[in-house]
């Protein structure tokens, strides 16, 4: 894929490094001459010096043929206008934008940005979850932050050990998508019985995660 990233700093650098390692073609637009040189030296991306919301700069970065545009600057207004111009002027099929003010997530979606995410919101919810539950191995928000996928390891003290999934009383929106047992993933049914050392791949609705994690691991601090 050809991906255009607008921004700088650590996020742009590490994201570019990951994407180019996966054989995506990345063009970075950055408006600081020093940082642009640095990014060009340290990454495999093509770097265009300029303002991402300038139609000429977008064209120079290859917006006409780009598959995706990712706006990562710290100014919401620049991210929004850049995404809108990429779509309107050059028909870029997908736009992703960082939103600095979490209130603006809805605004961006209404105004045509494909995916808007707030780093602050993602990080806070992860920290909250990690701080509350020691048995959570990994967490990932999906579906625009409405759902969370987490890996939960069951231990001796977990109240769900030896019980059938259907008897746990989990919420409607919660799904145990897989049980990883002895290194193998199995898709469970309601009849499946949970065992010590099981790792559950759990899909939860954002606001119900806490109650269900309590029923599974009971390790609420």
């Amino acid at each position, binding site marked *: 894929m050809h991906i255009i990233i607008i921004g700088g700093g650590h996020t742009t650098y590490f994201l570019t490094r990951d994407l180019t390692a996966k054989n995506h073609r990345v063009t970075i637009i950055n408006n600081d001459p020093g940082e642009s040189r640095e990014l060009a030296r340290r990454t495999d991306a093509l770097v265009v010096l300029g303002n991402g*919301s300038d*139609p000429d700069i977008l064209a120079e970065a290859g917006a006409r043929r780009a598959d995706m545009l990712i706006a990562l600057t710290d*100014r*919401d*207004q*620049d991210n*929004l*206008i850049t995404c809108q*111009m990429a779509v*309107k*002027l050059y028909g870029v099929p997908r736009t992703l934008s960082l939103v600095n*003010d979490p*209130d*603006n997530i*809805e*605004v961006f979606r*209404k*105004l045509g940005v494909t995916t808007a995410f707030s780093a602050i919101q993602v990080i806070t919810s992860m920290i909250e979850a990690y701080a509350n539950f020691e048995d959570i191995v990994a967490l990932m928000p999906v579906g625009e932050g409405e759902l969370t996928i987490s890996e939960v390891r069951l231990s001796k003290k977990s109240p769900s050990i030896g019980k059938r999934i259907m008897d746990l009383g989990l919420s409607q929106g919660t799904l145990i998508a897989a049980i990883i047992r002895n290194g193998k993933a199995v898709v469970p049914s309601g009849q499946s019985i949970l065992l010590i050392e099981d790792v559950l791949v759990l899909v939860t609705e954002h606001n119900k995660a806490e109650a269900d994690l309590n029923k599974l691991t009971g390790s609420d601090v």
Partner: protein
Amino acid sequence: MSESYILIVGCGRLGSLLAERLSTDENSIVVIDMDETAFEKLPGTFSGFTVLGDATELSVLEHANIDKADYLFVVTEDDNTNLMIAQVAREIFEVPNVMARVFDPRREALYSEFRIATVCPTKLSAQAFLDGLAKAPTSQPA
């Protein structure tokens, strides 16, 4: 015209001038700017209110009662800021009359499609100069 609630974002030279001209008994005016010293440009006779804050934040617009506004003029020095606030006013708060200043003619052309009235000082100045040229007595060098 019955009493109108007019919101002005940006208290620079243009914003303060608009506030001054519109500040009458019939209008209720609120000016938003993120720089407190900007409000010093308002004349002593200004009878409206000021709100200090960044109008790209919904909470600041809500604080200024944007949902009650009849008119919104977005006249900060930054095109992207103006275009974002104008769209938020139009699409989220359904302000009936929204006008935004946009310096870059290319951006202005794009956003005039978005049901947002734009004023492009660059284009207006260019037109004024061209009109002046057309009206000038024949000034061909010999």
